């Protein structure tokens, strides 16, 4: 018996996937040319799965700020905030985030994953209750395991089911923290946040919304689903990331609750890890400013998303419930999903292959994420490659013609 024996089934499954072509979980980019284009296997490739929603990874001002920060502050902080102190820019970023979200407090984490680990394991403890949407991201599930609260799931995007589960624990002591996401990362659907907020008001408890995929994407000012739905006052905590619309890496939590700052000395995933390096903090500050000052990026993003979503649906692919910057195509089975993914890559389109159990409903998905930086020509190219490959593999009906160009 070896340590890895328990994982051998995964090794064999992974091996089988790799034998079908390229390795979908270890694609190598020879170079990145722009937010939407890279070189893969010596071929210019449209990047359609990078979560680079606003296309800010190559923003000249963000790059300049990053370079300046490296030169002035060095490559890393080499320690945690509690042990080695904060750089001015860490505090500046927290102030900017609090102001952006109109909240009193903001705390920055080294990754978005750690933000959920930290916040979920700290806000609720033994005797408390964590109520999660069933389709929550892995970081939410892992955060729930790091803490000591009792964990209950409710059916995905089902406020009635949430109500029922809260009612069941009506007379049980302890705090309740309800956790939902702004945009769900696999098929791009949004939470029915108005209804969920209403359930929270009726049944009591706190509400946390993970706006990782909706920050800079939804809401008139880009504050996410809570802003779009007009329920920001009902949301007690917003968690988010710098690794998507802000084009860097890092996570955060903002809140209006008194005593929030105590988290800095009790939240282990905040305390026991090195803080974000100066280059990342500085580019994020510029990207946040860009997000706030350039609503056109959001409009452009949604127009691109709509174009891709409608185009794929018109071709006969099975897409998610709503047009959002995450457009997922449900595939009939794993073999066709892997085959299609490989052929798309060979034809210069790179997107994400998502396999169960990481997907809802145990169906394989081809997951795309659109960027404001995609050009009309790129979206058209993607649609024509999808048409060709989908027809070649018999996934779409070849008789079906696109109505508009």
């Amino acid at each position, binding site marked *: 018996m070896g340590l890895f024996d328990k994982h051998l089934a995964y090794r064999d499954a992974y091996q089988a996937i790799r034998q079908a072509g390229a390795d979908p979980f270890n694609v190598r980019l020879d170079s990145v040319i722009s937010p939407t284009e890279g070189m893969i296997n010596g071929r210019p490739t449209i990047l359609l799965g990078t979560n680079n929603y606003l296309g800010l990874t190559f923003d000249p001002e963000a790059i300049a700020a990053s370079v300046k920060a490296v030169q002035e502050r060095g490559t890393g902080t080499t320690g945690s905030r509690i042990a080695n102190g904060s750089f001015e820019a860490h505090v500046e970023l927290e102030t900017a985030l609090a102001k952006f979200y109109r909240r009193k407090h903001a705390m920055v984490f080294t990754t978005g994953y750690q933000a959920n680990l930290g916040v979920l394991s700290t806000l609720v403890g033994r005797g408390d209750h964590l109520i999660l949407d069933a389709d929550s991201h892995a970081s939410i599930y892992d955060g*729930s395991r790091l803490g000591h*609260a*009792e*964990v209950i*799931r409710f*059916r995905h995007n089902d406020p009635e089911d949430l109500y029922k589960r809260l009612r069941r624990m009506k007379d*049980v002591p302890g705090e309740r923290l309800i956790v939902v996401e702004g945009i769900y990362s696999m098929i791009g659907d949004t939470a029915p946040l108005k209804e969920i907020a209403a359930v929270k008001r009726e049944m009591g408890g706190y509400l946390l919304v993970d706006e990782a995929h909706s920050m800079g994407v939804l809401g008139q000012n880009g504050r996410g689903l809570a802003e779009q739905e007009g329920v920001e006052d009902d949301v007690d905590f917003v968690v988010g990331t710098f690794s998507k619309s802000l084009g860097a890496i890092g996570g955060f939590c903002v809140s209006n609750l008194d005593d929030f700052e105590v988290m800095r000395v009790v939240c282990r995933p905040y305390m026991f890890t090195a803080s974000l390096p100066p280059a990342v903090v500085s580019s994020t500050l510029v990207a946040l400013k860009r997000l706030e000052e350039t609503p056109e990026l959001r409009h452009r993003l949604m127009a691109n998303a709509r174009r891709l979503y409608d185009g794929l649906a018109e071709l006969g692919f099975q897409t998610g419930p709503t047009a959002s910057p995450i457009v997922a195509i449900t595939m009939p089975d794993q073999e066709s999903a892997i085959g299609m993914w490989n052929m798309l890559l060979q034809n210069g389109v790179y997107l994400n292959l998502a396999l*169960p*159990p990481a997907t809802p409903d145990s169906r394989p998905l081809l997951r795309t994420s659109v960027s404001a930086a995609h050009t009309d020509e790129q979206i058209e190219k993607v649609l024509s490659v999808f048409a060709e490959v989908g027809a070649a593999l018999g996934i779409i009906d070849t008789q079906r013609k696109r109505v508009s160009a």
Partner: protein
Amino acid sequence: MKAVTDLTLREIGIAASSVLGRTVEVADETHIGRDLQVDSLALMNIIMELEDAFDISIPLDRLASVETAGDLSNLIKDLRNKG
């Protein structure tokens, strides 16, 4: 396999069949992972069905010690008695 007379085990069988989309029979000694081929996600979905069937909360952290259908049945009985 002997007929399942235990009501809790019977409900576990119904919940598992519903989530897995195939008929499964369970007994006390049925190993949930090995015998039923249930992964962690399917198990959580089975738990959700059972919460509704018995109108109770089954916190996920209580599943750490559950390996067999009998373990799960005992957990449910325990939670029902508590309520």
